[in-house]
């Protein structure tokens, strides 16, 4: 490598580092403002953050596990392994549907990295979602299920959950802008996806053709991956990770490219 090439490469590296730092700054600033808007500023915001998941899914879990007295291995925990990750995807989509119009005052006044808006929505919901893990840990204690070494796979499954959220967020942001009248239908569609996956009953308890068909839904692999680690204490099967990852990659490939093209025109539509 010549001195000139080395110098050019150094400049490129420095430029890339600056772009990364800038993206991180913008992402954190957008997320921080979202969290302020959601949890307020007072001393109770931590309590609100911790209690939010209980309000959203806790009551539902109590109903299904205690009132309906479902059988099987740790039924409440098995349901939590579906409801909690689904909540991240669902709340990200709901948030992303309004993400662009909500920031219209900024978009109409200044240029910034608008491509990061759906990622910021996902990051906000991920922070909110983190409190849900307390709920899962609590259920493991209640059912007397100690964590095994398989828990080392949990960060990977969490990351997959977030990637699926980001992928859905780009599509939802575009839909919320293009067809705002269809927002309620989009939310209903995502809810339907939960029931077209083994949300209330683990996949192992579903037989016949339904078992095969449910695997088409990327949420199935995600839910089962959480169950493998937290309920059964073993590492998730490869398909449980790779299939949702492939679905997320496909969604990202389609929606990010469309979003990047359309974001140049947001100010015309808002």
């Amino acid at each position, binding site marked *: 490598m010549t001195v000139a090439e080395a110098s050019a490469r150094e400049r490129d590296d420095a430029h890339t580092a600056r772009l990364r*730092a*800038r993206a991180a*700054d*913008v992402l*954190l*600033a*957008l997320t*921080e*403002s979202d969290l*302020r*808007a959601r949890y307020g*500023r007072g001393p109770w915001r931590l309590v609100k953050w911790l209690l939010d998941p209980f309000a959203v899914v806790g009551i539902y879990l109590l109903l299904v596990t205690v009132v309906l007295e479902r059988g099987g291995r740790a039924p409440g925990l098995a349901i939590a392994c579906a409801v909690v990750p689904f909540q991240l995807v669902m709340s990200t989509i709901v948030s992303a549907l309004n993400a662009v119009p909500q*920031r219209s*005052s*900024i*978009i*109409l*006044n*200044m*240029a*910034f990295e608008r491509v990061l808006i759906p990622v910021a929505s996902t990051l906000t919901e991920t922070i909110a979602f983190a409190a849900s893990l307390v709920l899962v840990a609590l259920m493991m204690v209640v059912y007397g299920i100690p964590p095994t070494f398989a828990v080392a796979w949990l960060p990977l499954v969490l990351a997959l959950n977030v990637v699926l959220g980001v992928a859905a967020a780009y599509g939802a942001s*575009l839909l919320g*802008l*293009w067809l705002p009248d269809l927002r309620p239908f989009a939310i209903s569609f995502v809810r339907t996806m939960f029931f077209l996956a083994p949300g209330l009953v683990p996949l192992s308890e579903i037989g016949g053709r339904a078992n095969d068909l449910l695997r088409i839904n990327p949420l199935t692999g995600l839910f089962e991956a959480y169950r493998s680690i937290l309920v059964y204490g073993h590492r998730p099967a490869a398909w449980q990770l790779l299939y949702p990852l492939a679905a997320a990659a496909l969604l990202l490939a389609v929606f990010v490219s*469309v979003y990047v*093209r*359309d974001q*140049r*025109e*947001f*100010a*015309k*539509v808002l």
Partner: protein
Amino acid sequence: MARVTADGVGIRFLFDRQSRVVTETLSHLRRRGSESWGLRDVSFELRPGEAVALVGRSGSGKTTLLRTIAGILAPDRGRIAVEGRVASLLSIDAGLMPILTGRENTRLLGVLAGLPRAEARRRVDAVRERTGLGRKFDRPVSSYSQGMRARLGFAVAEQSEPSILLLDEVHEALDHEFRTIVEERASETVRAGGIVVAAGHDHPMLERLCDRALLLQDGRVARDGPFDDIQAAYLGEDGTSE
């Protein structure tokens, strides 16, 4: 060094059959209605130390041109090159999020304007001083009057030390005291080799601020020249400034 060069810039608006503006992707997915051009073949060069007024009737393309210079809209035809740090005050809300406080908006918009996070935090108190909002700075912007929002919006825009300042009518909503401050700051920007582009119908203010003007008609630059000549042409053609 600040510089803005526009070469044959065109901005197109696409409509669906219900006359709603749609993006290009959506217009491909749905049956297209019509299209109109907000800017057509706009060419000019703004040099360091210039203050330029955009004059023309409502709907002539002033705001669209300011948004294109700000990088908010990308040209559908032609190209625009902008050298320098841009700060824009294109609406009375100036990008402020009503649910956030003045302090929180200052941090957020500072970062979005290009400041590193730590730097945006450091500059908050200076912005607070400049706005004169006192304790209200820590209250949600939704509780602010229009004038207070404009003060905050301008102070926030200024914090990034822009070399190109874009003002769109909003300065007309300011009280006399703060309008004087805006004019002083705009003049300082020009003296420091920056560029100011101001659009509006307050011609006395534009006259104090600008020595050059572009007259926009139906998205085209109809005339470009000294402010007095353009103003005379505009008022002569229209009989009134609006």
